[in-house]
């Protein structure tokens, strides 16, 4: 089920009412059973055949967690961790990467003069597999590290893995943060629920008004890259930068907001990333749940920053390449990761990765000229990297980039639409002037009439942009 479908609000209202009734009458255990049922329904709405995979993933990691908990031998515990890694990454490998490796092997062999009969499978990628396997994996890793005691309650664990708001596109929660929330009784909190509604509203605005509006133009420019001047291609890349941000951060906000209605606090996934002054800051603000996952479970175990310069460069390289690969089985994503690594490298070598820790222009209305140019430059780097992300293949991406850096960059663009530029500027303005808040719809202190008028206007604009007859999917569903 899509968040931006007609069924979702109906589903949400029914589930919300039943959830709090069950919590009040029967308590946490039955409430969690209800969460599992509705989460499986939510997931099965897309394709019920993959429910078995979700169940298998939950049962395996729950069992491994229990066995780790009971074992006193470090060797056994390590073996169990390997089993969990093998199982979860094996699932990902099979469903997501099998054909990629088979094709890449075939291409490599052909270039060496061999012509092997490589098998490719018609595998359907289960929605959200990268998200829930990573979430489930985070559990076995922290249990192995003894940072979390394994749960003995299968219902709690299954609810943790399958919790519907963040099941298909994150945020990828840590077991140590989210699992305890399933173990406690919940009391309805008015302010928390209202804050969830407002966050959902902002999420829908970003997805439907910003991302879906820009997608039309992006879907025109990228496939026609051979016939367009560099100026249009640069515009296309900028449109895509805002499309993917609106799409993915919109989904995250809807997920976090929905979870709040049920009394759950999910981690923040985006923190105004396009107001970053360098790439390092960008990565602390973009897809935070994934970048911090890689930091905690890949970068730090590899030695983190407490190693020699060469190892540090290697560690960061691994994180960026794995991050690119996580997004999809295509060389374009690997190039995207590689591009970010290259952008990150100068900061790493100059030890300037943590100079922009605080928010930009705190307490000031406008940034300084230096900050402004830093933000523009960082945005430009991120936008250039997005070209790899959006292109169908690497050669398209390189052609696209070549054209941008050619004389045709100064041609009059065909796809410069004032209304779209205005929309982007309004969006940037809304985010900039509210960057110290969670989102622009936090209007505390304003009279109720003003607040409700703003929310109502936003809902009307969202409904007016919503394609009732064919809602657009979220980009990150494919990952």
């Amino acid at each position, binding site marked *: 089920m899509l968040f931006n479908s007609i069924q979702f609000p109906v589903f949400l209202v029914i589930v919300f009412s039943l959830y709090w009734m069950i919590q009040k009458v029967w308590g946490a255990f039955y409430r969690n059973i209800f969460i599992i049922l509705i989460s499986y329904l939510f997931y099965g709405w897309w394709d019920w055949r993959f429910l078995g995979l979700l169940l298998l993933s939950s049962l395996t990691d729950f069992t491994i967690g229990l066995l780790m908990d009971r074992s006193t031998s470090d060797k056994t515990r390590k073996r169990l961790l390997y089993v969990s890694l093998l199982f979860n990454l094996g699932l990902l490998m099979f469903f997501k990467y099998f054909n990629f490796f088979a094709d890449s092997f075939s291409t490599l062999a052909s270039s060496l003069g061999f012509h092997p009969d490589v098998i490719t499978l018609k595998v359907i990628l289960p929605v959200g597999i990268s998200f829930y396997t990573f979430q489930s994996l985070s559990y076995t890793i922290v249990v192995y590290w003894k940072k979390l005691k394994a749960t003995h309650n299968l219902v709690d664990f299954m609810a943790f893995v399958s919790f519907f708001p963040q099941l298909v596109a994150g945020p990828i929660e840590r077991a140590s943060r989210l699992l305890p929330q399933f173990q406690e009784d919940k009391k*309805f909190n008015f302010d928390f629920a209202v804050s969830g509604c407002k966050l959902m509203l902002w999420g829908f605005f970003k997805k439907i008004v910003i991302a879906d509006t820009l997608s039309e133009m992006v879907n025109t420019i990228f496939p026609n890259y051979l016939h367009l001047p560099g100026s249009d291609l640069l515009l296309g890349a900028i449109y895509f930068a805002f499309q993917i941000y609106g799409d993915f951060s919109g989904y995250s906000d809807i997920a976090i907001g929905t979870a709040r209605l049920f009394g759950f606090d999910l981690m923040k996934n985006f923190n105004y990333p396009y107001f970053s002054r360098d790439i390092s800051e960008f990565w602390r603000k973009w897809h935070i749940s994934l970048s911090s996952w890689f930091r905690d479970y890949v970068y730090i175990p590899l030695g983190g920053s407490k190693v020699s310069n060469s190892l540090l460069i290697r560690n960061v390289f691994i994180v960026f390449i794995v991050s690119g690969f996580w997004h999809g089985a295509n060389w374009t994503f690997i190039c995207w990761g590689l591009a970010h690594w290259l952008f990150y490298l100068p900061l790493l070598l100059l030890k300037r990765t943590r100079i922009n820790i605080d928010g930009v222009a705190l307490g000031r209305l406008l940034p300084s000229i230096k900050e402004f140019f830093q933000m523009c430059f960082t945005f430009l780097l991120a936008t250039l990297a997005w070209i790899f992300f959006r292109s169908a293949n690497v050669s398209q991406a390189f052609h696209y980039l070549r054209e941008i850096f050619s004389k045709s960059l100064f041609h009059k663009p065909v796809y410069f639409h004032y209304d779209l530029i*205005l929309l982007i500027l309004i969006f940037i303005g809304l985010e900039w002037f509210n960057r110290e808040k969670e989102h622009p719809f936090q209007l505390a202190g304003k009279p109720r009439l003003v607040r409700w008028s703003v929310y109502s*206007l936003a809902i*009307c604009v969202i409904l*007016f942009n919503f394609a009732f007859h064919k809602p657009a999917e979220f980009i990150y569903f494919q990952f």
Partner: protein
Amino acid sequence: MQKFARTFFLFTLFLLVFSTLISLGMDKLLAGKLISYRKHTWVITMKERSYDYGVLGSSRVYNMVNVPLMDSILHTNGINMATSGSSYGDNYCLLLKFLENGNKLKKLFLNIDEYCFDTQHHYSYPFADYEYMPFFFQKNMREVYSDYESPSKMALWTVVPFSRYAEFSDKYKLRNFFILRHFQSDYENSKGGEMLTDSTYKNFKASFSTLNVNDTDVKYLYKICALCKQKGIPVIFLTTPESPELYPLQKNRAELYNRIYQWTGQLGEHYYMFDKLADFSDRKYFRDYTHTNSVGSAFYSKLLAAKLREDKVL
């Protein structure tokens, strides 16, 4: 929880009022502004124009009556107001809005054929409801809506007026409201028609073996004629060419055409059945059973113009 439910309820009421005000504003704005390239919008937003004749109906006249060609022969000024897949109900709304805007017609050529009386089966969307949203609350429009829409949809659009625009937001794109340049519709050049340049004959299988008559469609045939009578516009009926290969597939064609002759005799000044003009059995004139290609349309339009001149209709 009670406080949340109460706030939610009050906010929903507020939203309803707020969205209703917005939709009323949109009704006013959209009623007179060309914000899309669609044919309906072009006709509806036209003001204070005079034409010697107008052509109204479905794709059978939209694609087959070449108005610029006829005008060059007859030295007239005509307009093709027909729209693809439209029923008489839709045609009635379009004509009504056109005339309400101060536009004038001296004659109306109205399409009539065997499909006009069972549009729910033959056409995928016989009443383009989204085109007339700004006029939904007008009495004569509501009658048409009631005849073509389900009661639940009528109730929703009445109680939550904004839902009309929200449902069809793909037709009323928000960004089109802010396009600064004023565009001129391409229909101005073609005088509203569109000839089918795809000349390949597609031997479609006809799935409609029995031709039915639907009361709603008949009702709006009468309403169009009554409106024209009220405005002093004589109605001339046209049945445009069809491939004779179609006839054996239609079980009760003769029976239905008997009724069509009755209606045209009763309601129209003239009736021009295509087979009285020439032999249209050659496949080269057709794109499919029921639509001529541009060659066939030109051939038919010339013959029609000649006949109209001969009869002193134009």
